[in-house]
């Protein structure tokens, strides 16, 4: 189990960020001495992180050729995929899995050894953000607070109260966040295990289901760890929430796949086992639903 948690923690994604051409100086106005006009930035990021944490680096790379001076490296900026604004408040990996709708089995055959799987995004800026993007007025501090808020919710779901995490000292809270920023899994696990109870006393499980078709939406089902003494299976939850796709009483195959941390996960697995191995750095197990045949065509 520890090995799987290590692998998910170190999972990464290749991003290529293009910038909205409207934000750039005309070619003739690029400062002398600048290298050729930069139209995209490529970066590898951990799946278990927030996209906006990389804004200062990405905006900084484009900065010499921007039409306007940068007054804030967070506020007013957002990412889009194929014209769809991306909500930054979920782990990058969960966003990738749900928005690209990639079926991992197809993905592995589609990309061979000498090619890279790259997620192409566009960086935009404006005074009016899309309605699905949380304004970042307080920069990295706001990101940390938002992440801590997720953990308070997760703590409540698992323990029936947020008191455990609310009693953390300021230094504990900062050390917990620092472990994410510095990618220190040992330190992260030490603090995480103070919030996540023993499996036998886990009340419910923090679970988020992401869908991108027919519309982008999020489902937060009530997922009790045990149901009548039996462990709740992912198929129980999916069958209840999406009976049209996951018909558990029928022998016919499901119409969708469940993907977590980029892995095609078996729906007959207990949610508790999936949570303990694949839960994200915000305390939730993020499962993206990918329609069968969505990307094969």
């Amino acid at each position, binding site marked *: 189990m520890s090995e799987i948690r290590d692998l998910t923690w170190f999972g990464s994604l290749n991003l290529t960020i293009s910038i909205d051409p409207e934000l750039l100086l005309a070619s003739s106005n690029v400062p002398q001495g600048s290298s050729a006009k930069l139209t995209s930035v490529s970066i590898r990021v951990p799946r278990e992180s927030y996209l906006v944490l990389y804004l200062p680096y990405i905006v900084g790379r484009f900065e010499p050729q921007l039409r306007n001076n940068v007054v804030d490296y967070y506020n007013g900026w957002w990412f889009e995929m194929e014209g769809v604004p991306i909500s930054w*408040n979920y782990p990058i990996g969960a966003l990738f899995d749900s928005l690209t709708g990639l079926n991992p089995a197809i993905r592995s055959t589609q990309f061979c050894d000498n090619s890279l799987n790259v997620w192409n995004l566009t960086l935009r800026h404006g005074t009016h953000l899309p309605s699905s993007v949380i304004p970042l007025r307080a920069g990295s501090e706001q990101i940390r607070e*938002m992440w801590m*808020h997720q953990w*308070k919710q997760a703590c*409540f779901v698992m323990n029936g*109260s947020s008191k455990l995490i609310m009693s953390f000292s300021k230094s504990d809270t900062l050390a917990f966040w620092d472990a994410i920023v510095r990618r220190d899994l040992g330190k992260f696990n030490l603090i995480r295990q103070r919030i996540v109870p023993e499996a036998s006393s886990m009340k419910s499980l923090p679970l988020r289901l992401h869908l991108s078709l027919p519309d982008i939406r999020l489902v937060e*089902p009530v997922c009790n760890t045990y149901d009548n003494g039996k462990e709740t299976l992912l198929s129980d939850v999916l069958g209840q929430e999406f009976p049209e796709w996951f018909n558990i009483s029928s022998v016919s195959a499901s119409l969708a796949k469940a993907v977590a941390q980029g892995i095609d996960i078996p729906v007959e697995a207990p949610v508790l086992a999936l949570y303990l191995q694949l839960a994200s750095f915000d305390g939730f197990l993020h499962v993206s639903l990918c329609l069968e045949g969505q990307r094969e065509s």
Partner: protein
Amino acid sequence: MIAEDIFQKQLETELVPILRRWPLCRELSLLKHNGSVVILARHPELVDHTFQILIQYSTIYQEPQLLFKIWETRIVDQVEIQRLSFPGDVSTLVNTQDFTIRSDYIHNTGRDLWYSIHGCDTGEIVGYQEESYLERWCSIYFTIFDPGFSNLFIYSDHYVVSQD
């Protein structure tokens, strides 16, 4: 904490009638398909500000979830326009008291941004008794929008009956 079926029942039979009597309520829609209520309400002092309030069930906290937006009306070139207002300090527009109000809730299906009131201590604040849970809840939480909200209960039938 309130079970979802009790929430739905109290929402329809107890909370909606109370909110319809609220003098600042301009419009109320009960959305039965997802068990929520949307209210448009005047600001108690600022005539050019309107609250859009959404009450739904939080499956995380198993409590009522209170979300709101603030609309500001402006006249531009003799045309009245309404735009969303997300001020840096929301306490200038609502009665925040000790509530934790955050502008970071993206609606699960609407994909739009709302202010949310943190709900983890709701049970302690409201009291755990199931009877009239939503009535007690709104008597506390709606003072965010209207400091005089409790006046609604002074002349209510329920109050008179409970005094007998």
